């Protein structure tokens, strides 16, 4: 009921606000479909990793098509335009690393991904263990601060 009365915008804002202040390293990993403020609310990381076939976007492709073209059925076309793949986001500098999803037996694949993630998490922690809490916070700040897509005039 509380959620309904208050909507969840403020909750997202507060979550990002607190996350931006954390004095310990934060690693966010996009493993499936991440979209909109809900994903970002837990995505303010020093490192943002993403599985090769995951997507991370401003909105679901259905929502995007319905807002931009008033037609949710054009979701496939929206997905192609939105640049929401791991590769796109890596090129934008929004994520730091793509975790491969090898085309092997499913159980082996999950095992392999889990191992790779573990390796990434460990290496990130060791890269950051000598940093002060101020450095950790500042590094995270600069990461988002520097997402700049505009032209200087």
């Amino acid at each position, binding site marked *: 009921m509380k959620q309904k009365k*208050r909507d969840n915008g*403020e909750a997202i804002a507060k979550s990002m606000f607190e996350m931006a202040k954390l004095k310990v390293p934060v690693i966010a990993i996009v493993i499936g479909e991440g979209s909109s403020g809900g994903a970002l609310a837990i995505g*303010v990381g020093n490192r943002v990793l993403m599985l090769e076939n995951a997507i991370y976007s401003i909105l679901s492709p259905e929502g995007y098509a319905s807002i931009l073209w008033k037609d949710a059925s054009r979701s496939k076309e929206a997905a192609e*335009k939105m640049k*929401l793949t791991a590769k796109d986001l890596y090129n934008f500098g929004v994520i730091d690393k793509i975790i491969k999803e090898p085309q092997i037996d499913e159980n082996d694949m999950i095992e392999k991904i889990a191992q790779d993630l573990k390796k990434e998490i460990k290496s990130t922690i060791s890269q950051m263990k000598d940093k002060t809490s101020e450095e950790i916070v500042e590094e995270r700040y600069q990461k988002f601060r520097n997402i700049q897509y505009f032209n200087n005039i």
Partner: protein
Amino acid sequence: MIVDKIKKREKSAKNKKTNVDIPIGKWVKCDKCKEILYKDTVRENLSICPNCGHYFRMHINKRLELIADKDTYKRFDINIETSNPLELEDYPKKIKALKEKTGLEEAVASGTCKINGEPVVICIMDSGFMMGSMGAVVGEKITYAIEQAIKLKYPLIIFTVSGGARMQEGIISLMQMAKTTAALTKLDEAGLLYISILTDPTYGGVTASFATLGDIVLAEPGAMIGFAGQRVISQTIGEALPEGFQTAEFLLEHGFIDKIVERKDLKETIYKLIQLNK
């Protein structure tokens, strides 16, 4: 009835010859009471409907006139323009046309000004530019303004009006929420006052970032404020929404905002809040 009103106004307007057609551009219809109003009359009334009290959206320049001491506004020297991260075909054209039509650089203006002599950093959004949506330029300008407030040790005042994230800029737009929010943590640590004033409508990624993070959150009467649209929420939860849901009055009642302030009292209220927080 409308015809009568027009005739009456025509008569009262100075130097008016009888039966002269008044260009349609001089008239505006109130969204709430549907009354056709003379634009200048509405403007002189702080962009409030003289018939029913409905608040019209304000152009950045009108808002500045209302809030800033005369000739004190200094625009920040930040010269950036919208790019096209998703390489959409018509987006740059749309931006260019809007710039020409509105005379605005983008959906937000930022700079310093004085409010009854008190220096502040001020950001004002404008719904006339892509519905006040936040893309990379808006995100950068807000972030830069926050950093300047810290540098200058000035209070930060932001007037919001926004449909939310700028869909045309995809994930880059989403990231501006984190960027502006992170900048506000620094303002908070510096112990500086941030007053956000939510005006109609404030939605989506702006609500879910800097708009609701003010130390003091004010709103104009009747402003619609939310994250998701009402239709989406009611479809998702499969229930009708309560009466007045997402109005400033409803949100005040539920502790989401601190005060609803009439337009005519905004400048004085902001000034007093700055004084109290000194």
